[in-house]
């Protein structure tokens, strides 16, 4: 069976499990909404825009993603699914890639709800359609980067006993560049007088995604095989 079919099989399983016993999505969503409300108070009822808004949105995204990353490999660890997978001919890279894609789609689903809420709760002025499309595109790219890093970080943390402690320790430094680039890209879009996104940020984000997808592919053998 081809690797692509294996990826599809595992990805479908991740979504089926999430539908059957919703854990990751509700947790990430509730956390995000809670954080937005918290910012509302923490910034003393301030409406925000520009770089500050970009930072609030992206950091909240990352922190929510960390919750998802912590759950990503639990079935492999606790329910013997890693052994089960290794007894089949499916390739390690397919499993790691499927995990990254699963987290990516979870984050996209999260943003589908969290982004409007963010605009409603915190943003001082609603962005125009053009700006909104670009913000969404940046989020799609930064989510992919977080997911690629998260698949590896989640696997490392799952091997450890103190899984929940390791995820933020490893995940935060590794994603600083992605958050930094995305913030530079989104910042001007969320200003009251929207600016344009410098082309190099698109390139940098895409490169970051690519590098960490490749890293995940390169170390997949080390993650999956014991």
């Amino acid at each position, binding site marked *: *069976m081809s690797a692509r*079919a*294996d990826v599809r*099989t*595992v990805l479908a*399983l991740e979504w*089926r*499990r999430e539908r*059957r*016993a919703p854990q990751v999505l509700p947790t990430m969503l509730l956390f995000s909404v809670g954080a937005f409300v918290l910012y509302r108070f923490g910034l003393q009822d301030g409406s925000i825009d520009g770089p500050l808004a970009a930072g609030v949105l992206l950091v909240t995204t990352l922190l929510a993603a960390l919750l998802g990353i912590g759950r990503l490999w639990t*079935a492999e660890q606790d*329910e*013997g*699914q890693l*052994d*089960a*997978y*290794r*007894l*089949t*001919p*499916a390739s390690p890279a397919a499993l790691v890639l499927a995990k990254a894609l699963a987290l990516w789609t979870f984050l996209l689903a999260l943003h589908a709800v969290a982004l409007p809420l963010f605009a409603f709760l915190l943003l001082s002025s609603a962005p125009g359609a053009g700006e909104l499309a670009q913000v969404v595109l940046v989020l799609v790219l930064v989510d992919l980067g977080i997911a690629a890093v998260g698949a590896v970080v989640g696997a490392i943390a799952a091997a450890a006993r103190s899984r929940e402690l390791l995820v933020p320790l490893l995940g935060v430094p590794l994603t600083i560049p992605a958050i930094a680039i995305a913030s530079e890209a989104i910042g001007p879009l969320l200003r009251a007088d929207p600016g344009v996104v410098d082309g190099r940020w698109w390139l940098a984000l895409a490169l970051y995604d690519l590098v960490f997808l490749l890293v995940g592919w390169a170390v997949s053998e080390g993650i999956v*095989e*014991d």
Partner: protein
Amino acid sequence: MPDEPTDAVALDGLVRRRGERLVLRDLTLAVPRGATVALLGPNGAGKSTLLRVLAGLLRPSRGGCRVLGHALPRERAAVKGRIGVLAHEPLLLRDLTVRENLVHRGRLLGGEAATPARIDALLEATDLVGRAAYPVAALSRGLTQRAAAAAALLGDPELLLLDEPLANLDPVAAERLGALLGPAPRSRFGAAGPRTRIVAGHDPEAALAESDLVVGLRGGALALLARPADVTDAEIGALYR
């Protein structure tokens, strides 16, 4: 394969460490294809570790280890999908139903394993047809073990590694599952030759009755290697002393 080896498992000085500790010490033995091996030994003797090494789930630290004609860990890819494992952990997703688990495993295994006919046949054989739509979490331990057995047999494995397969089962279920996991001729789905089985357990009498070879481990080392007819009670006693 041009030169099909006659031994399903051939160990030559196999050593497995866990950190500083030796878990398996210098094991040398050969298991012919189609044979049933009774793997005996007290707790902590290394039975489960040996099964995991043979399954390709743990790599040997030293020594030769050929399974189904392929040297582990180097040629591990070649034996994937050809080995069935039924151990203490059921290797099933608790939130999904029995059928969903089997379908998922079958897709990863590919080939015949994924066909609904194969899955139905196994559900029938494990008497789980009525529970196919139950989530695994809702099954009793005995039923879970049967579902795990169905998953282990899904790929019609040439080598079956069983770690106390009938633990937690009532007598009727044990008999039924025992027959399914037994040394029966390979099903209509495969024609690669008879199935080799290695069965770890604590019940010497039952093990001797159905095996072709008795392997006793003690402290990770080979303490007994004989045909069942030649094994004395004293030797079994010494194993567990």
